[in-house]
C-alpha cells in the first residue's frame, strides 16, 4: 500500500469570490503518476497553483506530508533576456536548499551536473538558455526541478509547441523519471492521448466538476463526452490508447 503524500478534503479552488472547482476530494500517493486534463478554463492551472501552495484554497483542507516539490512551469513563461547559462538555470533549483545567506558549494555543482546528465543535456551546460530549442529548454527546466531533489515532480504542459521527435522523447524521459527514479509525477496537459498513454491515474476536469481514478476506469467515451461536450472514440491498439473525435471532418 502506497503512502498518501497529499490529501485534498472538500477543497474549493478559485480566485477571490470566483469558485472554479468545488468539493475536491482526492489523494496523491507515493510513486503516483497522475495526468490532469480538461478543456480550457476548466481550472487545471488553478488546481496546480493550489497544489503547489502558490494559491490558498477558498475552503476545505489540504494535508501535505513534508515533501519537496519540483516544479516545471510552462516553457513560454520563462523567457529571459539575460544570458543565463543552462548551468545557471539548473543551479536555481538548489537555491531554496542553501539557506538565506548560503552560496553554491561543490556539492551543489555536482548535483547540478548529475541532473543535467539525467535529462541528457550535460553537453549544453555552458550554452545560453535563451539560445536553446524548445525541447532543450524543457529539459533544462526539468533538470532544474530535479536539482531540488524532489519527491514529487509537477509538470505544466511540458510538450506544448514541440516538434514531434522532441515531443516523444520528452514523454519518454518523464516516464523514465517515474519508473527508474521512482518519482511521484503530476502532469498537466491538454493533449489527452499523450497523458493517457503514460500515466497510471487520470483526473478529468470540467467546469464545476471533476473525476479522478485509474486510467482504465476514467478513460471512457461517456466521461470524455461529459468533460469536453463532444463525442470521442476511445480504442486501445497494441496496448496504446488512441483517442479520436467522432465528428467526420
Amino acid at each position, binding site marked *: 500500500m502506497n503512502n498518501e503524500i497529499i490529501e485534498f478534503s472538500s477543497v474549493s479552488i478559485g*480566485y477571490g469570490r470566483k469558485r472554479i472547482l468545488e468539493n475536491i476530494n482526492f489523494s496523491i500517493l507515493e510513486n503516483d503518476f497522475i495526468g490532469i486534463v480538461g478543456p480550457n478554463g476548466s481550472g487545471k492551472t488553478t488546481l496546480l497553483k493550489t497544489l*503547489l*501552495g*502558490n494559491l490558498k484554497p477558498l475552503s476545505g483542507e489540504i494535508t501535505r506530508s513534508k515533501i*519537496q*516539490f*519540483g*516544479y*516545471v*512551469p510552462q516553457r513560454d*513563461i*520563462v523567457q*529571459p*533576456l*539575460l*544570458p*543565463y*547559462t543552462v548551468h*545557471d*538555470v539548473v543551479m*536555481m*533549483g538548489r*537555491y*531554496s536548499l*542553501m539557506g*538565506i*545567506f*548560503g*552560496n553554491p558549494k561543490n556539492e551543489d555543482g555536482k548535483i547540478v551536473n548529475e541532473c543535467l546528465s539525467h535529462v541528457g543535456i550535460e553537453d549544453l551546460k555552458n550554452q*545560453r538558455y535563451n539560445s536553446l530549442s524548445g525541447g532543450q529548454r524543457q529539459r533544462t*527546466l526539468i533538470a*532544474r*526541478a530535479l536539482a*531540488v531533489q524532489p519527491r514529487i515532480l*509537477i509538470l505544466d504542459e511540458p510538450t506544448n509547441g514541440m516538434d514531434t521527435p522532441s515531443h516523444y522523447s520528452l514523454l519518454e524521459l518523464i516516464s523514465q523519471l517515474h519508473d527508474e527514479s521512482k518519482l511521484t509525477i503530476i502532469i498537466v496537459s491538454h493533449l489527452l492521448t499523450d497523458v493517457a498513454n503514460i500515466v497510471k491515474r487520470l483526473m478529468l476536469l470540467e467546469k464545476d466538476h471533476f473525476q479522478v481514478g485509474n486510467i482504465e476506469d476514467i478513460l471512457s467515451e461517456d466521461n470524455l463526452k461529459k468533460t469536453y461536450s463532444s463525442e470521442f472514440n476511445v480504442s486501445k491498439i497494441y496496448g496504446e490508447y488512441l483517442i479520436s473525435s467522432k465528428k467526420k471532418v
Partner: protein
Amino acid sequence: METIQQLIELFPYAILGSIVAGFICAFLGIFVISQRVVFLGASLTQVSVAGVAFSFLHLINIEGFFARIFNIDIEHNIFFQNFEPAFFSLAFAIICVLIFSQTYRQKYITQDGILGMIFVISIALRIIFIQKSPAAEVSEIESILKGDILFIGQTQFFTLLAVTVLTVLIFVIFQKQLKFVTFDPETAMAHGINSRFWLLIFYLFVGMGISLTTRFVGDVFVFAFLIIPSSIGILIGKKISQVFLVSVLIGAIIPPISLYFAFILDVSSGPTAVVLAFSIFVIAFISKKIFA
C-alpha cells in the same frame, strides 16, 4: 585640458555624483529591463517628481517632525535643509512600488495599464501641486523639480553614494533570491522561495534608487540611464558578468564625459548624457548586426 581642470575645480561633486547616478541607474536598469517593466522606470520618475512637487505645498512639516525627534537644528544642518523634497519623492515612490508589486495578483487590468495610469496621474498631480504651491514662479519650480547634474553638491553626492552602496550590497547578499524571483517567480515560489516578499524588496530598492536619482539628476537622465546602458550590456554581453560590467561601466563613464561636452557646447548636461548614451547604443546595435 583646461576645460577639464575648470570642471573639476568648479563641479567636483557634480562629476562624482553623475558617475554614481549613472552607475546605480544602469545597475537597476539590468533588472528592470530583464523583468520587462521598463515603463515602471518611466512611471517612477514621474511619481518622484510629483513627490517633490507635493513637498512645495508644505502641508506636512516633515522636517520639523524629524528634527524634533532627533533633536536637530535645521538651520545649521545642510542635509535637513534638503530633506523634505527627497523624503516625499521617496515616500511617493515607495507607495507606488507597494501598489505595483501587488498588482500581479489581480486579473482585471494589465500591469502596463496600471503603470500608464500611475504615469499620467503623477503628471496631473504634479501640475496641480505646482499651481497650488505658495512659491513664486511655476517655471522656476519646474526647473527645481527636474533636477540637474550640475547642482549635485556634497550632501547629494554622499546620499547617492550611500543609496548605491546599500542597493548593490542588498543585490549581492541576496542575489540567489533576487535572481530566481526575477527569472521565474512562479517556480521560485513552488520551490519554497517567497516570491512576493523578494519581489517587494526588489521593487522597493528600484523605487528608492529611481526616486533619489530623479530628485538629484532629473527624470530624463534617470529613465534614459535605466534603459540605455543595460540594453547595450545585454546586446554585447555573452555572460551575465559581462552584461553587468558593460552596463555599469557605460552608465558610470558617459555622464562625466557628457558634462565636458555640455560645458564646451553650452547645453544642458542631462540631455547631453542621454544623446551620448543613445549614440553608443546605435553604434553597438549596428556593430552587432554587422559582426554577429
